[in-house]
């Protein structure tokens, strides 16, 4: 049975996107989780929206040049910047905000649909080290 994926709205409360909408399809539960987390972010820090990148294609198929990001259950997030600009950063850059990123991780892990987060800041509890994850959080959902 084909997986029915839902598109993340290109604009919404508490987030901005840095991938085209064609690459932002998720399972209904994954999109719902994202919107929950982003609403919460908006209530807590309205001037610091979450950057959301690739999720999946509408057909849930192969998404080069990713290995994963099939089935609508993987999402890439940008870590937060101290200056709150909608720009990339990484854990070695002086613009990187560990404290804001830690809050995002805590909110994600508190959500029942979040299975695992790959990210390389060893000072943030609950994330898993994985090569290539200095500049984004790779979040896997359960359903």
């Amino acid at each position, binding site marked *: 049975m084909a997986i029915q994926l839902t598109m993340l709205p290109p604009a919404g409360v508490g987030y901005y*996107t840095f991938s*085209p909408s064609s690459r932002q399809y998720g399972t209904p539960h994954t999109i719902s989780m994202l919107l929950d987390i982003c609403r919460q972010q908006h209530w807590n820090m309205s001037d610091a929206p979450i950057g959301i990148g690739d999720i999946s294609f509408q057909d849930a198929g192969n998404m080069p040049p*990713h*290995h994963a990001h099939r089935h609508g259950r993987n999402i890439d997030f940008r870590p937060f910047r101290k200056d709150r*600009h*909608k720009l990339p950063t990484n854990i070695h850059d002086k613009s990187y905000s560990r404290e804001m990123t830690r809050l995002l991780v805590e909110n994600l892990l508190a959500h029942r649909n979040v299975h695992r987060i790959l990210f390389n800041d060893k000072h943030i509890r609950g994330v898993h080290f994985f090569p290539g994850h200095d500049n984004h959080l790779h979040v896997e959902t359960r359903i």
Partner: protein
Amino acid sequence: MLGNRASSTACLLAAAALALVAPGSEAEPPKNAIAVTATFDCLWWSEAQMDGLDPNNPPPKETRVPIKRWEYSDPVGVPHPNVVDLVVRIKNDSPKDAEDVSPVVYIQWSEGPVRGKQSAVWGQALKLPSQTPVHLAALEAKSLRFPIDIAGKMSELDAKHQWPWSLRAVVDARAPDGGTASTRLELPIIPGD
């Protein structure tokens, strides 16, 4: 005894000094001293363009940025161009003109399974199309661009479930009177997870 050794050493030094300054020496004239360096660069968004960029309607990429690796980790912030330029800079380090200096560029791809970088092997060396030879005045430097289609290579390998894990370029520059120089560099190609 000691005096004889000192005087013979002095004679040898004097002879060597004469040889260095002697006019009309029969030694070969110095060849053109050619130096060559190479880098990769590409067109990408500037930081000002990236800030709040609309991924559904992105602006044109118009800023040249150097890249040391192709990487798909942040679709906007980290360059992963379809085409990279190999920029070859040739410098004439000699005090005379160098005519018809022509760089020869070979590239090689390290190809392997999408999930098996360790199994990747270097493919055949491919010669890139030659460019018009350059004239370099004394101490002058010029740069030449050689575009390399990375996306095309990925498409070619995708059908075989392979990935181009690295790109290697070897550059030889040669002046007609025999001056030569060479360099090589590599561009790791890192997929997303």
